[in-house]
């Protein structure tokens, strides 16, 4: 069993579906942050069989985790301060997702104007439907 040490301050993202941690790493733009990140792949899990875990050592106010709710509701977010879990963050669907999903509609203005940010807006909270801000095409992307 591989051991990864405790972090003093930051987040532990637990119960990530096996194999998805790297995609979350990119969506949270962790590659752009100057902080320690541990990506644990295929950890044993009683609940899931196999799971991924991300440990991020950073100031807990610097990271916006809203996009996680869109990616996967089942991820557990543990907030760590002074080496202890101080909070379990509840994931709320963000009203707007910017630069995470690309609009696939070939008729959308984003298909020809490259500099436009791809923005999706929460159209139906109950059904978790996001639509492109420009053309209103439904987001069909799955993680």
């Amino acid at each position, binding site marked *: 069993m591989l051991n990864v040490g405790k972090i003093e301050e930051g987040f532990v993202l637990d119960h990530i579906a096996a194999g998805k941690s790297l995609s979350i790493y990119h969506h949270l733009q962790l590659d752009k942050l100057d902080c320690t990140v541990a990506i644990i792949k295929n950890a044993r899990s009683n609940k899931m069989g196999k799971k991924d875990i991300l440990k991020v050592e950073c100031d807990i106010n610097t990271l916006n985790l809203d996009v996680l709710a869109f990616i996967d509701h089942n991820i557990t977010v543990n907030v760590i301060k002074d080496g202890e879990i101080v909070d379990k963050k509840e994931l709320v669907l963000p009203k707007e997702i910017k630069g995470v999903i690309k609009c696939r509609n070939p*008729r*959308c*203005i984003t*298909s020809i*104007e490259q500099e436009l940010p791809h923005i999706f807006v929460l159209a139906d909270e109950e059904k978790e439907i996001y639509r492109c*801000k*420009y*053309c209103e095409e439904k987001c069909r992307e799955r993680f």
Partner: protein
Amino acid sequence: MRHLMSPLDFSVEELDRLFDLANDIEHNMSKYAHACDGRKLATCFYEPSTRTRLSFEAAMLNLGGSVIGFSDAGSSSAAKGESVSDTIRVISCFADICAMRHPKEGAPMVAASRSTIPVINAGDGGHQHPTQTLTDLLTIRSLNGSIDNFTIGLCGDLKFGRTVHSLINALVRYPNIRFIFISPEELKVPDYITDMLKEQNIPYEEVIRLEEIMPRLDFLYMTRVQKERFFNEEDYVRLKDFYILNKEKMKLAKQNMLILHPLPRVNEISVEVDDDPRAAYFKQVQYGVYVRMALILTLLEITV
């Protein structure tokens, strides 16, 4: 500053005020003849649409304003690769209001986000065409007296027809409207629309033949059934006559039923129907000018 991107941008109350103004314009044209003196409308049409563009231009000229613009992307700087965002910033320096048609969906919204003048979506791909919906609503209100308590049949291509989708979305905000969708199986209204009607307990029926429901309609909104929408020639030949409105079918209709059509018509309404007093589609074009005049005044915040 306000823009018009979708017919739902205006509340029912705001639409009532807009239509009151359009009706006042209809009956007192001369009162508004100089309302936009010195103002300029830019018609930025990245794809040809003579009808809509001329309707906007006629509207502005009727108000005493003037018009600048282009009527296809090839004659604009888009051909040189200029973005919509840049174009609208430039146009904002030339004109007081802009009507934009673009083949890409959402382009007018991008323009509105960068513009310092009001932008009207004059049609963006298969997405929205709000001034057509406002035209349809004004026609219904003017000829019916109000937008409530009627049965409307929507006939033809209900799957791809954006005018139909927009009109349904706009009409569900009004009380006691019953919908009958008349189309071949291949061109039925999309599920998201029937789901929305079910959720809101709004009565609707789906039928294949026009004749069977004709006697129940107060309005018949015709659209074209295009050959290329069918999977095979055989189905097209079999079904196309079901969706052609002629004198015979009109015999089944109420004496006060009104026929609407967003135009251009090809052959789905036989020319012999044009002289029938129930044919309202050319009046609809006239209402299109009134509603665009009212819209220009409203967005420019001009009161007369």
